[in-house]
């Protein structure tokens, strides 16, 4: 191999290595800097606290693309730095009810449907790892509690409440979303 082709090969290898590093770095960075990801879209749509019902998929004003038009959805954005979040959803058997939890950076970390109901409700407390430790310390002091605890990987994120009507219409499912709750349990 002549010097010229050797040098050309070395330069090519260097370029490929730089391109590879840039490719991987940009992929990993994108979920943290994307200006139009789901959380950013919902931050504009549901700026305040509590639950907001999303417009039906495909209708004007729907902040999230690619949703199922058969499913009525409400969103609750959370910031666990303000305290643990108590989440509660009524299950009345008139439709398929599911809750999905998503972190700020786009990881769907937990989901459950109405088969997990207890006394007609889906109830759990969402907290950070340190808040769970504090809660466990309280447990040992005050006796065990029966609440279901879910640990979030990041302090911020959002919960989607979905109802797919089995009997009745989409409008009824949308009304069913009114019985869903999400609120900061103990402000810190």
């Amino acid at each position, binding site marked *: 191999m002549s010097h010229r082709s050797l*040098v050309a090969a070395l*330069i090519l290898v260097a370029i490929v290595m730089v391109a590879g590093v840039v490719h991987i770095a940009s992929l990993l960075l994108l*979920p943290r800097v994307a200006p139009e990801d789901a959380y950013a879209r919902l931050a504009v749509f549901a700026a305040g606290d509590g639950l907001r019902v999303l417009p039906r998929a*495909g209708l004007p004003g729907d902040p999230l693309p690619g949703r199922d038009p*058969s499913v009525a959805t409400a969103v609750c954005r959370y910031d666990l730095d303000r305290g643990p979040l108590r989440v509660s959803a009524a299950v009345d058997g008139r439709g*398929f009810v*599911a*809750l999905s939890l998503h972190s700020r950076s*786009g990881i769907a970390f937990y989901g459950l*449907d109405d088969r997990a109901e207890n006394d007609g409700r889906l109830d759990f407390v969402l907290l950070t790892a340190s808040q769970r430790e504090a809660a466990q310390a309280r447990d040992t002091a005050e006796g065990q509690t029966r609440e279901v605890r879910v640990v979030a990987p990041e302090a911020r994120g959002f919960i989607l409440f979905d109802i797919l009507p089995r009997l009745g219409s989409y409008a009824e499912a949308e009304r069913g979303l009114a019985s869903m709750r999400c609120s900061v349990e103990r402000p810190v």
Partner: protein
Amino acid sequence: MTSALNHESGAADARRSAALRPGPVASASRRPVEDPSAAAPDGRAATAGGLPGAGVLAIMAVGLALGLCATALVLARGWDPGAVTVGAWTARPQVGTAAIDPYARAELARSGAVPLVAGEGLAFVATTDDTGYRLLRTCSYRVSGAFPPARVWTLTATDPDGSTLANPAERAAFTSNDVLRDMAGGVAVVVAPSARPGNWLPLTGDGPLTLTLRLYGTPLAGHNGEAAAAALPAIARLSCTGGAANADGGTTR
């Protein structure tokens, strides 16, 4: 970019030659054919030696551009190493779990879409019929056969971005609750621009079509192997309106 690369190639070549050779005499003896004049390579080496950072900069610039192009290309094509394909249908079981791969995660961040969580369900997407031809909104299709085990399923017709197609019938989807079944309990949905008896999912406009089958409360969610083995409904093309659409459907896959 190409000219910068050529320049860098020549400059680095000259630098390397200079480093390997103690002087012009050795150069002449080792490379008599390539470098008949001993003065020329020295002159090039001196010029290149004056720009040591430029070559590195050019390599970085080319690498940066290629790396970003690769990212943009992969995200635009929606490549997902964890995808499971069954017939014309593709599912991405890991997208709704914490084990989501970086490609799918970056794609979601770019599009703003929210995946179905594994605890809720699993979505299968089809952009071609069973013979591999692209689905078009000017054609008619029959979606029939087995539907995988799920408490509820929905079948939705959208454009490639996932937006439902506005239509006078105001029907964007069928669900397992409202679909009509035959005597044996079988399901057949006709996806077509013109009205059909039975389960008719209307199409409007032209351009590509995407069918999404969402399974809610399914044991398939989150498990690659089971999703791959699932029997899914067949997508058969019935007809296409308009010669142009037909020709397009025949050439694009």
